[in-house]
């Protein structure tokens, strides 16, 4: 093979009190798809941020096409030929797709500083078409586009910079299965053109399908770089999680109860789709679906965030849930997927966050009962092992895992009967993940009924007593305990009808 297009040598990055990366070497050749793997907290995102110009490394050198260089900003990196597609979109939802792709670009400006709209639209449409987004009208404002179309715009934006190196962070996370295939086509085309691609994903199946090489990071250190032919799923997992692999999911040692706590009958998700299912006492019911399948809407409906038709029966009694307050009164609790936006109030203390849903119960008349609030907060700090010097500390200073425990804790205090967990371990490191899994198990054992909605297949498989698979607003399959593996699950969630005969 030719010279590497990008070489990183001895890259270290220190934050106050934390060494995020130490002495990482990384080489990238033209025309290769290089998978970057590791658990959350392994240093993947730090490495990507250094590569894309967000952070400067504390130590180490970066060489691009043989020349030593540094990136002053993301824009600088892009101009030098290194583009990144973030998992979270950086789009201007008030602007058209085309403008998002070519925002603030001198080459689109003609005489008298006039933006050449037709050129801009044509180029943008061409780029979008080339990655299978032909149905997207690039003149439309991005806020009118669906999630997967928005992602296509993101990819087109990165490609518009004539990138030599393209970093793709969980590119398939938001895409439905057929779009993933199209995205692979694009990746293959880019590879053929000699673009080097850093492909970051948790999805094993994709890695084996698309990648040429794989590099694994763990705890800020590079474990190894290997050719894809030389690894198996098992060996990769081994490399990623080390010896903790067996203890991640605790052994389920108790059967769920018999009585039905929650019965959902024709609960509408939108005007055309509805679901029905039951949840038993002490059961962990997994709900799996690719983004856009409606699993999030199920949670929103059950928690009263969204209104619709259909019946919800709790312990056999019909319940009208039109607001989160109604849900809370029916002893339903909800740990939402995005804790920064929906879970914690950052400037407030752990104690204030933990007590938020329960304040009416923690008051004497109108006045807050400080003693009870303190005792309650300390109790749950200890129960959930929230690591902080004091519960009066602001939650902003906690790690992702501890923040997530605060979100879970604030609902446990309300002594719910039904707990909806959505993406309970998103952005949480491995250690905290195991702890949270243990907590979930313990809660189920104590008789709490849990609806687990997650896009992480291992999590759903490892924790659930039963798994419902949701596809385009319908429940298409049910796996009993121990029945599902990742491949089957993904297949059912992606294109169930190809297998025939399920419905």
């Amino acid at each position, binding site marked *: 093979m030719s010279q590497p297009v990008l070489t990183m040598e001895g890259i270290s990055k220190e934050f106050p009190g934390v060494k995020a990366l130490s002495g990482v070497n990384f080489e990238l050749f033209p025309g290769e798809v290089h998978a970057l793997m590791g658990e959350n907290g392994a240093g993947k995102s730090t490495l990507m941020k250094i590569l894309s110009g967000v952070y400067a490394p504390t130590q180490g050198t970066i060489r691009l096409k043989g020349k030593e260089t540094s990136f002053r900003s993301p824009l600088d990196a892009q101009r030098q030929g290194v583009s990144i597609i973030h998992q979270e979109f950086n789009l201007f939802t008030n602007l058209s797709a085309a403008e998002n792709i070519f925002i*603030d670009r001198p080459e689109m*400006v003609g005489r008298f500083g006039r933006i050449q709209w037709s050129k801009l639209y044509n180029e943008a449409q061409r780029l979008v078409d080339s990655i299978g987004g032909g149905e997207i009208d690039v003149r439309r404002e991005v806020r009118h586009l*669906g999630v997967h179309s928005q992602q296509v715009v993101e990819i087109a934006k990165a490609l518009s910079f004539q990138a030599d190196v393209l970093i793709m962070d969980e590119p398939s996370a938001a895409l439905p299965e057929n779009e993933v295939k199209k995205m692979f086509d694009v990746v293959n085309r880019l590879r053929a053109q000699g673009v080097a691609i850093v492909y970051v994903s948790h999805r094993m199946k994709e890695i084996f399908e698309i990648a040429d090489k794989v590099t694994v990071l763990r705890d800020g250190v590079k474990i190894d770089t290997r050719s894809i032919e030389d690894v198996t799923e098992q060996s990769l997992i081994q490399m990623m999680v080390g010896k903790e692999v067996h203890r991640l999911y605790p052994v389920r040692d108790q059967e769920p109860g018999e009585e039905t706590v929650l019965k959902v009958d024709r609960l509408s998700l939108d005007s055309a789709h509805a679901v029905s299912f039951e949840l038993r006492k002490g059961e962990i019911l997994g709900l799996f679906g690719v983004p856009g399948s409606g699993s999030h809407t199920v949670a929103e409906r059950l928690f009263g965030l969204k209104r619709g038709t259909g019946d919800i029966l709790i312990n056999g009694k019909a319940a009208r849930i039109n607001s989160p307050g109604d849900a809370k009164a029916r002893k339903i609790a909800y740990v939402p997927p995005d804790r920064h936006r929906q879970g914690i109030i950052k400037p407030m203390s752990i104690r204030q966050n933990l007590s938020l849903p329960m304040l009416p119960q923690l008051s004497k008349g109108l006045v807050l009962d400080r003693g009870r609030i303190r005792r309650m907060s300390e109790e749950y700090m200890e129960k959930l092992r929230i690591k902080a010097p004091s519960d009066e500390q602001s939650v902003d200073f906690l790690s992702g895992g501890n923040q997530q425990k605060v979100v879970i804790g604030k609902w446990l205090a309300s002594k719910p009967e039904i707990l909806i967990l959505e993406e309970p371990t998103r952005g949480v490191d491995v250690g905290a993940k195991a702890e949270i899994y243990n907590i979930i198990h313990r809660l189920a054992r104590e008789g709490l009924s849990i609806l687990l909605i997650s896009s992480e297949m291992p999590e759903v498989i490892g924790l659930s007593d039963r798994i419902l698979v949701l596809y385009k607003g319908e429940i298409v399959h049910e796996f009993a305990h121990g029945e599902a593996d990742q491949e089957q699950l993904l297949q059912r969630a992606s294109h169930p009808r190809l297998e025939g005969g399920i419905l």
Partner: protein
Amino acid sequence: MKRLLNVHEAPIIIFTIAVFLLFSVISPDFFQLDNIKLILDQNISMFIVAIGMTMVILLGGMDLSVGSVLAVTATSVGLFLGQGIHPWIAALMGIGIGVLCGMVNGYFIAVRKIPDIIVTLATMYIFRGIAVGISGGTWMTNFPEGFRFFGQGQLLGISFPLLIAVVLIAVFVYLLKFTRSGRKIYAIGGNGSAAKLAGISAAKSKFMVYVLTGLLVGIASVIFASKVGSVQASTAGNSLSFEVMAAVLIGGGSIFGGVGTVAGTMLGVLFMGIIKNGLIISKVSPFWVDATTGFLIILAIVINTLQRIRQNKGKEGDLI
């Protein structure tokens, strides 16, 4: 028709037409060329100031000081004229003072990073004080004949101030729609952090927008002074900022930034102008004029909100 309804400004267009028709039915004097000219003429300074306010609101800010800037510049122009300075030079100097005021706002907002509303609330007090101070408490009036041209003159058979307003509207529509600087304003207002990632400097754009707003208010104040014929520093432009902000928001702008167009704003100004003119022409009791105006503003906002909800429902695809 459906395409038309999807235009961002659709509700305000329809509402304006409805109000227009209503007044035309109530009063035969309303729907006449003369009266339409009159409505345009009465709102020239509003049109011009509203262009600046549109940009400010697009950036997610607001400018409470425009009325006071108008008072400062109009008073200065009056003083210059009183000194016997040539009307054109006096006008240019006045506009320069408007730019200066914009730079003061821009400095505190963009460079010192103090929130817009605080800065402009403060400069609202300060500029007003300065205006009345330099006026010495007297009216600026008895302007020379040559100065009348700015507010009342004709060029090629068209009202000069109207021509200026049309040119400015065209320039700023072009600026906002067709230039990088203009699109940057939308980008910053739409998603500040994404703009930063794309290497767009919010501070530069903000500074520029406040300076341009100062410029526009300067121009508006020259026209104002010439048209009205006298300037009272303590009250000139008193309720201007609220009215102009209302016009921008009625025209489809969002106080959170990123959404709005000059065309929409101009409709908003027109809408307010039609109401004020129409109510008087329709011989409504003067006591009812303000109450009705406020009610119609609220109604316009309600309609805008409904449109926004409708549009969000029309989002493509999935269940999420």
